[in-house]
């Protein structure tokens, strides 16, 4: 399939997590999410003072879909892609930037935070995170055995009858 499957684990995950934590501190944003191109949350951080976050699954799905639609638009205009998207409201901003071909870094913040500052620090973080994701893509993926399938099917019976 064309979409790479990302498996974050062990030390790689801890490093990504650390970079997101640093980004959160440096910029003063509320929420910071690493989302894969399919719309799944790979990692997320929130400021201690931030209110309860929105439904992250929904945010990730809409961000990834929006990025995909924007990329299609870019292609129509002769660009390979548009690497960043900014959505500014009266009180808040959503900023999304591509992390290579693998993922999207999403930051949500209020009007007290300067967009320019967010962009500068986000790009620095992306340089580090993209290296880790490239490393992960070349690592062998751990296997899920038949036991996993049996256990999951049993839960399916419980959920769907």
């Amino acid at each position, binding site marked *: 399939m064309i979409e790479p*499957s990302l498996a974050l684990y062990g030390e790689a995950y801890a490093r990504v997590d650390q970079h997101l934590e640093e980004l959160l501190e440096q910029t003063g944003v509320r929420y910071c999410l690493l989302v894969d*191109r399919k719309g799944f949350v790979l990692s997320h951080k929130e400021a201690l003072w931030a209110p309860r976050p929105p439904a992250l699954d929904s945010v990730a799905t809409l961000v990834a879909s929006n990025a995909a639609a924007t990329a299609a638009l870019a292609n129509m205009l002769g660009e390979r892609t548009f690497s960043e998207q900014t959505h500014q409201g009266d009180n808040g901003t959503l900023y999304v930037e591509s992390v290579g071909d693998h993922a999207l870094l999403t930051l949500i913040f209020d009007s007290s935070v300067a967009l320019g500052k967010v962009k500068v620090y986000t790009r620095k973080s992306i340089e580090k995170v993209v290296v880790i994701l490239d490393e992960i893509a070349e690592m062998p993926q*751990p296997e*899920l055995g038949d036991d996993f399938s049996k256990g999951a*099917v049993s839960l*399916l019976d419980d959920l769907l009858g």
Partner: protein
Amino acid sequence: MSTINFAAREINCKIVYYGPGMCGKTTNLKHVFGRVPEHLRGEMVSLATEDERTLFFDFLPLDLGSVQGFKTRFHLYTVPGQVFYNASRKLILRGVDGIVFVADSAPNRLRANAESMRNLRENLAEHGIDVRDVPIVLQVNKRDLPDALPTEMIRAVLDPKKELTLYEASAAQGVGVFETLKAASRLVLEKLSQNR
């Protein structure tokens, strides 16, 4: 391919409901949303036009629970069925793990069913995916219509080699919705275990 987050102990799978316009894809999702316990489902996101036709997609996250320590989750999507929304359909198919093809039993929708299936094959091919590599379940919907075509006639058009598992449904009444989803989920989980 499913996204596995070993560190966060999460597995996410994407199932897409595909089919011609007004065949009942969103109705399937609405029924699931209405019947699954609240703590096992997330928000349902619908990007629809004013007349409630799906414009981009509908989205519903569904928690299966924890399997061997992995929080396992299905993300259910529908695509817009109308012919002119093909760009959206293509985007939604990105990274799909399983498909429910919803066919309409109305006599005047037989051609639309066939065109949608052909469109599915084409769009998968554009993503570099062979249709035989993706788990697909066929749901023949609207069986409650008084003039519903015979199921075998619909299958003969969509799946002449009888390769797909078929479920009859009346999604508006909630009939066959869970059975179809369960079959598709099961195929996805089996493939997940085999591939890794």
